[in-house]
């Protein structure tokens, strides 16, 4: 059987998740023995055109030309995997979605380099194309990358375990951030990170995106009961998610005291 053609691509991002792939010293060579890696900008000189069996895309769509690029990658690929928080949820740069466009452009590119090309908000891949699987996190857990590839290679459709960060936080025998009078996005956030932040006494900032089976009102209620201000909640939520209407919905719930 021919080895599957795999391409790793990047849109607007820091490339950190791709670096995580390069950091897979233990298993990278074994993986490369199983796939035909035909496109990987930061790891390989030669680049081949599609079609691809699997395209793995880091970064959010935040420039006009990237819309065309992601659509083309999608058309050329059987399976599309979003790699990291930018690709799955718009990333930190999705903050521009809530700021004055001109201010952002001026700050980022300077007065003289303003072109039409930048006139877009930061969106996850799924805003423009169908995404088959997510590898979550900022940065990703490199083992998730190996795991999803292994499953695809063995012929299994990868299935995510949808649990909040809290569950893994308990495995690590932590004291709940709320019980320490802190603030935390754990209750609203997709786990899989082994609660690495709360376990190091840092509140979860939601990099893996909102949970599928979300009870938003209950989550906000806990934060409000722990005296987290509306502004803090919104800032926390805004840090990582550019999903359509998520921030807006929370803003509205908070404004109406509906939690």
């Amino acid at each position, binding site marked *: 059987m021919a080895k599957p053609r795999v391409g790793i691509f990047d849109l607007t991002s820091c490339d950190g998740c791709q670096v995580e792939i390069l950091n897979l010293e233990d298993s990278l060579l074994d993986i490369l023995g199983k796939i035909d890696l035909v496109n990987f900008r930061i790891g390989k000189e030669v680049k081949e055109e599609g079609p691809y069996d699997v395209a793995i895309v880091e970064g959010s769509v935040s420039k006009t030309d990237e819309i065309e690029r992601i659509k083309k990658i999608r058309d050329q690929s059987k399976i599309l995997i979003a790699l990291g928080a930018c690709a799955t949820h718009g990333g930190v740069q999705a903050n521009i979605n809530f700021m004055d466009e001109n201010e952002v452009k001026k700050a980022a590119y300077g007065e003289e380099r303003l072109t039409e090309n930048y006139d877009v908000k930061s969106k996850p891949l799924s805003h423009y194309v169908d995404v088959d699987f997510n590898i979550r996190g900022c940065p990703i857990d490199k083992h998730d990358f190996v795991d999803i590839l292994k499953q695809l290679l*063995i*012929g*299994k*459709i990868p299935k995510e375990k949808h649990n909040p960060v809290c569950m893994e936080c308990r495995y690590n025998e932590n004291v709940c951030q709320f019980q320490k009078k802190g603030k935390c996005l754990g209750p609203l956030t997709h786990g899989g990170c082994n609660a690495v932040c709360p376990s190091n006494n840092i509140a979860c900032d939601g990099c893996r995106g909102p949970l599928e089976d979300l009870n938003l009102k209950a989550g906000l209620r806990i934060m409000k009961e722990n005296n987290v201000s509306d502004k803090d909640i919104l800032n926390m939520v805004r840090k990582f998610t550019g999903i359509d209407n998520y921030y807006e919905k929370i803003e509205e719930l908070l404004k109406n005291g509906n939690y």
Partner: protein
Amino acid sequence: MPIVNLWGKNFEIDKKMKNIYKPELASVTKVIEETEDIKTIRIKHDSNPKPGQFYEVSVMGIGEAPFGSASYSSEYVDLTIRAVGNLTNKLMNVKQGENLAVRGPYGNGFPMEKFKGKDIVIIGGGTGVAPVRTVIEYIEINREDYGEVDLFFGFRSPEEFLFKYDFDKWKEIFKFNITIDKPYEGWEGNVGFLNALLEKSEISPENKIVILVGPPIMIKVTVESLEKMGFSDDQIYVSLERMMQCGVGKCGHCMVGDKYVCKDGPVFCYETVKGMVD
């Protein structure tokens, strides 16, 4: 005071103790292509399942899933499998002479002893015909213990028929009824849903036991028909499906009320099923 002496006699785990989660390899002696996407895989196995029991079949690297036995034999087990997902797709590639990792049989099975002296109505829809085949084969062997036996099979079309090679034999021994969902070129038999065929048969509920296996919607409408025909819920036995993982009542997934479908079932009297609410 060395601690070793303090401890006294050490516990030792019996190395031969059965590990309920560990499958054993069983060789595939035959693969029968039933339909386009259904195969019957026969494995050499002397576990002699009760009718209605199931096995956990593994494909290493993919996982494990439960499959009802489709045969009643002390030498082999037939597993009739439709390609619907990761594991079953892989199982379609299994060839004669290869090994399958299997554990079981599990579950309660149909209480055939309790049915002695009764007339039996066996109703199977689609792949639900596979688990009822164990009941049929059991009755074939213990024919004198049971009264009249009516078989009712429903399939989508003749292309979907399972165990075609058994039909002639069954027609001789039992009352054999079969229907397909929609008209099909060249088919001269019954067309329409199973429950309609059942109602038409005007079977009396007297001294009868109904064994009913099929998709949930088929079970629902068939039970309605049976009730209309005067059957009571304690005459009807069904086999339930749930999310199952361990198959032995430990992992918790298949629990409905105080019942584990894998351990207390999968066969339940319909009277019990009505009380099983999430």
